[in-house]
């Protein structure tokens, strides 16, 4: 095992995590269309919702200012969920698309190391995407993200976890049902978006959908985000509910169960 002998277990894990992160850096470098996720779509989203905000707030009324702020702060926070989810889910899908899964599975790489490596590079993509959103909002619509204050950090952190949890569920379903389930990588976000009350309180939703919205962790995180804009400070109770609802343990257990099914049923044949 060569130089591996001289590394401690922790150093070895870190080497593997960095290797996976670098592998995904090369993917981004060699596939310019992947840059759309971290540049073009954030830009388009801010332009779209910023323009709507400008339209609904022509006379700078209080209600109009509120709606504009909800739209712009909402799209900013939404991109935290979007970028973290897409980076992890498409990171795994890249291995499936390039039929690299078998090579990875016969290496000493552990599942947690792989996820950590993809998440590590996903954080780089997240910062790129959020930077584009923030600068576009500031440049075109004079919306300064830093005005939301330091309370933005815990809200964004919870939404980051929400994105990862959704991605783990998507990966688990792809392992179980094959790349046919990859549509979920993008599609599931379009279900979560309206139900989470990204741009409005969920009382604006049809009553029948409100219990579903209440059950989503993202709903509580976005409620905390709107409270920041309103100047009500950090709603730690909402953030706590959001974290509780993330069911990180549930997502990991589900993923491991699907991985076990993958091995038991020999689904690797789908990727060779």
């Amino acid at each position, binding site marked *: *095992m*060569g130089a591996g002998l001289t590394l401690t277990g922790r150093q070895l894990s870190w*080497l593997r995590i960095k290797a996976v992160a670098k592998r995904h850096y090369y993917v981004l470098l060699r596939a310019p269309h992947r840059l759309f996720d971290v540049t073009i779509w954030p830009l388009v989203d801010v332009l779209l919702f910023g323009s709507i905000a400008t339209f609904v707030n022509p006379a700078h009324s209080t209600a109009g200012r509120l709606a504009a702020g909800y739209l712009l702060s909402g799209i900013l926070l939404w991109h935290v969920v979007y970028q973290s989810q897409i980076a992890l889910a498409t990171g795994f899908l*890249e291995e499936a698309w390039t039929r690299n899964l078998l090579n990875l599975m016969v290496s000493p790489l552990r599942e947690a190391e792989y996820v950590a490596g993809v998440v590590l590079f996903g954080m780089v993509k997240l910062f790129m995407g959020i930077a584009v959103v923030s600068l576009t909002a500031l440049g075109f619509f004079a919306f300064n993200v830093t005005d939301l204050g330091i309370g933005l950090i815990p809200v964004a952190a919870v939404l980051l976890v929400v994105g990862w949890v959704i991605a783990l569920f998507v990966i688990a379903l792809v392992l179980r049902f094959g790349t046919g389930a990859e549509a979920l990588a993008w599609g599931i976000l379009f279900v979560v978006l309206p139900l989470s009350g990204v741009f409005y309180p969920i009382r604006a939703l049809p009553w029948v959908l409100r219990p579903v919205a209440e059950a989503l962790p993202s709903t509580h995180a976005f409620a905390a985000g709107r409270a920041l804009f309103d100047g009500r400070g950090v709603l730690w109770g909402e953030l706590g509910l959001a974290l509780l609802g993330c069911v990180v343990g549930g997502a990991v257990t589900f993923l491991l169960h699907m991985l076990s099914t993958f091995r*038991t049923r020999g689904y690797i044949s789908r990727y060779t």
Partner: protein
Amino acid sequence: MRSRSNSRYAPRWPTTKSASRASPLGKKVREPTNFYFCHSGCVDTVVRTSGLTKRFGDVTAVDGVDLRVHVGERVALLGPNGAGKTTTLLMLLGVVAPDEGWIEVAGHRLPRGRSAAMAEVGFAAGYLPLPERLKVDEYLRFYGQLYGLPDPDIEAALDRFGVAQLARARGTDLSSGQRTLVGIVKAVLHGPRLLVLDEPTASLDPDVALRVRTGLQALCRDEGTTLLITSHNMVEVERMCDRVVFIASGRIVADGAPADVASRFGGADLESVFLRLAGRDVAERPFERTQETERPAG
């Protein structure tokens, strides 16, 4: 499963687990040893399975396989399509979970010891592509690091198989033969104790296949690497392997030195045995003599 005499498999090298030396690739590798240490004590086998069984629905792909591969052996797993060779390999690699039986690789019981076991194993298959967005050196560095080599000597590794010029090529720019070669370089980069190859030369022309065989034989000779290979090229198997294990309908039906197995089944060579086990008579081979005549010496 066959028994081996202790004298033949007596260790030729010091058996200190952490002994190391410089490899031909310029990196530190452990001295080849004939022993592994595991919870059950000192063993001279790199692969042990017992009662290995795998079913897919109503089909029993692997049926009670007991297999031992000793350190330094070059073993071919042979059998017709659908016999259960690849399923057996995938179970040994921890990718497919057996329904019954157990597996121990390099002294580590699967699945619990999968990561530690796979650190001792290299795998390549003729059907596996290279990730299209990576250049060859990036691909090899990535896998080297997964196996604990922070800065593997890519050039020397490629040079061993005569493909050093491919270092900066992209996976998509390679021919299928070149991809196979790079896959084999990836598999041997970390100096594995056990090299598992699934149809490694299936897509190679005779010249490149010869280069692969030569490289693998040198690796086995110089570093004491154990080889477990599947192939449908019986001539290649006879040249490379000192033991063949025939599988038919998921069961081991013959196990031994190539010449012994051939004579036991009354055939002149492994191809005769293969056809017999596949349910076809030797007489059905119209080109048997031609193939033997054309077989190069060595």
